[in-house]
């Protein structure tokens, strides 16, 4: 079944860090949805077409996500020909993603590639000669989706969702069996069993939904700041991890001034490393600015490697300073240059030598562990890393909760079935549709039908 012409959203600016990121929303409920997350002088649904409004995007707990500008386009005077808005946010990819997620949580669907253009065409906004171009867009996006699908198919997620769908089809079959084959001499499932089957699927989906946090790590990477006093070996560690001499290393304290940003993939996870200027009291204007930037990096990082050297030991004072900038659970205290001393020292989480490579593996393990936080995923778990999949699973869960509610109210099977079938259909958007034929096939193969 084709999807309804619902309200869609996507980031319109190319991926990566630009000065601004534009998030586009299009469809009947654009204004309503923009108002759900936006607070400004006036409501978007009351704004005139082709006007721009300044305001704040607030998160679920009213926390500030970003200051933004919103442009309003009332149908048919927009690119797609539908009501639409464009949110200009700061060019931080995390901010843009966060806004998209907020919209999706409010029921806006993530646009398929080329979908804005397709809508524009269907609403007569593009002229005839552009038809071919549109078809190309659709086709190339289909290819991309196909390639994506293949990767997904190989992946654990689609295996997991396929499993879930089988569970669902089995459950649906039990419900349908009772409706279509009431006269047959077969034992029908009782309500308790039915509810527990639905619950099982819900709990599996919940696990998958939880894995999204984890999936985000895989998708977006982990920001790691390398901090410490001057000369403890931060740049040396960066170079070691990158396996190249990227940063200048010298015995002179205060070598690194500006932040050096490099990416490295370790064990399948993208780490974005920020080598920072060593923190110390300084009168040098440039060094002072470097230190300010170091502190900024600490605030914005997911993890902080707090580096010390064996000569001076772990600096409690600096640790306390760090704790003011970030949460203690994000800090990994490391003692470097252990090759210089027979006594390995105390008070650190990990002991390494950026020169010999001693202990680096332990450091990596620690990084991975801290990245995943409380999640208990092994490399064999299915992980949701894509917002669209997340959205489908979330809807499936909602449907199943409704189905469960109907079952608990002892409503007849056809009511339970409405939501079971809806759940099948949204899961179908991830791995392909379930048809009534699939359910009947399942019934015929498992139950002796035919009086």
């Amino acid at each position: 079944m084709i999807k309804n012409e619902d309200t869609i959203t996507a980031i319109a600016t190319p991926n990566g860090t630009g000065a601004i990121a534009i998030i586009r929303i299009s469809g009947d409920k654009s204004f309503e949805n923009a108002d759900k997350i936006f607070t400004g002088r006036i409501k978007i649904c009351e704004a005139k077409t082709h006007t721009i409004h300044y305001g704040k995007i607030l998160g679920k707990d009213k926390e500030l996500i970003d200051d933004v500008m919103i442009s309003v386009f009332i149908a048919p005077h927009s690119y797609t020909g539908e009501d639409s808005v464009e949110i200009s946010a700061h060019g931080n990819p995390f901010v843009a993603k966060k806004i998209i997620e907020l919209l999706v949580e409010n029921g806006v669907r993530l646009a398929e590639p080329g979908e804005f253009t397709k809508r524009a065409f269907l609403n007569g906004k593009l002229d005839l000669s552009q038809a071919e171009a549109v078809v190309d867009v659709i086709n190339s996006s289909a290819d991309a989706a196909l390639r994506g699908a293949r990767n997904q198919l190989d992946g654990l997620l689609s295996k997991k969702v396929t499993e879930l769908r089988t569970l669902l089809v089995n459950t649906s079959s039990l419900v349908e069996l009772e409706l279509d084959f009431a006269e047959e001499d077969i034992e029908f499932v009782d309500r308790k069993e039915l509810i527990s089957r639905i619950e099982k699927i819900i709990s599996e989906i919940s696990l998958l939904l939880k894995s999204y946090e984890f999936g985000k790590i895989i998708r977006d990477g982990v920001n790691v700041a390398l901090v410490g006093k001057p000369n403890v070996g931060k740049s040396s560690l960066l170079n070691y991890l990158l396996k190249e001499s990227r940063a200048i290393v010298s015995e002179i304290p205060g070598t690194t001034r500006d932040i050096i940003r490099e990416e490295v993939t370790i064990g399948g996870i993208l780490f974005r490393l920020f080598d920072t200027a060593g923190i110390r009291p300084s009168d040098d204007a440039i060094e002072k600015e470097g230190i300010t930037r170091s502190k900024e990096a600490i605030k914005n990082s997911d993890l902080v490697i707090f580096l010390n050297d064996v000569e001076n030991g772990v600096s409690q004072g600096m640790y306390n300073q760090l704790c003011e900038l970030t949460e203690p659970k994000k800090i990994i205290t490391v003692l470097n240059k252990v090759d210089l001393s027979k006594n390995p020292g105390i008070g650190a989480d990990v002991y390494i030598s950026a020169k010999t490579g001693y202990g680096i593996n332990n450091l990596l393990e620690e990084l991975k562990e801290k990245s995943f936080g409380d999640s208990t995923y092994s490399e064999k778990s299915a992980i949701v890393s894509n917002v669209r999949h997340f959205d489908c699973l979330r809807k499936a869960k909602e449907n199943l909760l409704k189905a469960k509610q109907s079952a608990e109210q002892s409503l007849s099977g056809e009511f339970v079935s409405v939501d079971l079938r809806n759940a099948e259909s949204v899961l179908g958007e991830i791995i392909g549709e379930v048809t009534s034929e699939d359910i009947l096939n399942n019934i015929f193969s498992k139950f002796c039908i035919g009086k």
Partner: protein
Amino acid sequence: MKEYDVIVIGGGHAGVEAACIAAKMGCSVALTTMDKNAMGRMSCNPAIGGTAKGHLVHEIDALGGVMGQISDRTGIQFRMLNKSKGPAVWSSRCQSDRELYSKEALRVVESHANIEIVNASVNGVLAENGKVKGVTTSEGKEILSKAVVLSSGTFLNGLMYTGLKSVSGGRYGEPPARGITESLIELGFESGRLKTGTPPRLRKSSIDWSVLEVQPGDIDPKPFSLRTDKSQFPFLPQMNCHITYTSPQVHDILRKGFDNSPLFTGVIKGVGPRYCPSIEDKIVRFSERTQHQLFLEPEGLDSDLIYVNGFSTSLPADIQLEAINSIKGLEKAEMVRPGYAVEYDFFPPHQVDLTLETKLIQGLYFAGQINGTSGYEEAAAQGLIAGINAALKVKNEGELVLKRSESYIGVLIDDLVTKSTEEPYRMFTSRAEHRLLLRQDNCDRRLLKYGHKIGAIPDEMYAEFERKEKLILDGIAFCNNKKFHARDINPFFESKGQPGIDSTETISKLCKRPEMTLKELLEAVKDDSNEIIKEILSNQLVLEQIEIELKYEGYIKRQYEAVERTDRYENTNIPLSFNYLSLKPLSTEGREKLNKVKPRSIGQASRISGVTPSDISILLVYLKN
């Protein structure tokens, strides 16, 4: 030479509906049959209706068809299936007197002055320049017409098997129809082969009824037809069915015949229905089961035959009898006629359009088993739609295509055309995605308008319906507005052991309580001067409709929303002449399938297996141009 408007080939359930509706619509009709006494004959089970099939009969009735009325007049046991569940899946079923059913069908057909029953065996379809011209008969005659409905059941090159022996024939004791398949293949059609089966018939007097479990009909039987006079219903004395079971011993006996089973030895090539397997199939596929349930159904009031439902078989006759005689109550049973399997030609239904007109030959319609369905009700539904469309075509008055969201008939035909079928197709409620909307109780509200429009539903009946409809809508509005105050209604709830309300609450809201009926609530208003309450309470059908609409409002609303979402695509038409083959951007499989099915709408296209969402997007783009 006389030219008829419509020729209907075959007097089975599809043929009877097609002929009668075309006649009602003012066409001159020739109904060809090899034996007019076999009109509307029940070749298998002497029963009409059942889950989802009951819905079909009610729909046929609302459109002006005859199956419901014939069934009501000839039924000897009526039951409402699924009564313990919600109203959407209540399904009517009746046992029929086989002889009387056939006689009544003939009487109904003969009551139409403009139907001529032609005793002939048709052996070919005449067509010229892609248009139908008429038919040829085995006597070498030609009968001419503007439209032809082909509804020849299981007769096309029919072969009946009992054991490895086979006899040509379409039904027990009746010859097959030869030549039609060949003539259609010549015209460019593609054919396939299906199989179905029937159980043995036993002599009633030879069964020991005293040891069998009784299955009675409903105490307050409900008719199928809106037009049936309830004061006379049921028309006939009512009878019981009985239940017995097979046993491991019975299964052992049946296994002895496997070497001579046309099914297991591969003699039968046609595909049989999985929902109606033979007893030998059940034993093999579900070997863990030690017994299978059998229903002993009377074939009629005065008939000495008993139909053994659940024991369809094509094993050798001696094995059948031996097995039967090992079943409880049937130890001394006499087998009047063995069960048999019948194999017949069908034409994979992607070759017809949603009007049931063939895509290849204008004016030629296929209905019933020829389209790969099984069941009287499925056949009748198609006969009706084919007949209506043939008549509309002759009169140049457009067409009638029912939507999936408004009828099981729409689901049936859309499934056939869009997905084709490889086994005999039977209707199930699970095939309807908008099941909660497609109830037996609201068939008139869904379909009577079409029946009226084509002239098959009389004006007075339609006016009566409109009055009822208005009362339903007014009643719903009344219930949405009318509020109870806590002080007035709480004593009533208290007396029923139910929780009271806080301040005020509407009737609609209170009606959603599972233990509450609308009747009780309306009576609790205690306002004798209220006209609308009086009217609702005095009309059982109106009361029922309002109650269903209120009780299940949330679910029903969600189904309507789902319909709205898909309607946009259902209403985006694709011209039949659309050239898919030149549309290179389509996926290869999508292009082939689309070209084969030639869907009417984007909605239909999206249901074709192998057509991807991006194929649909591409189609949309090109349709815009």
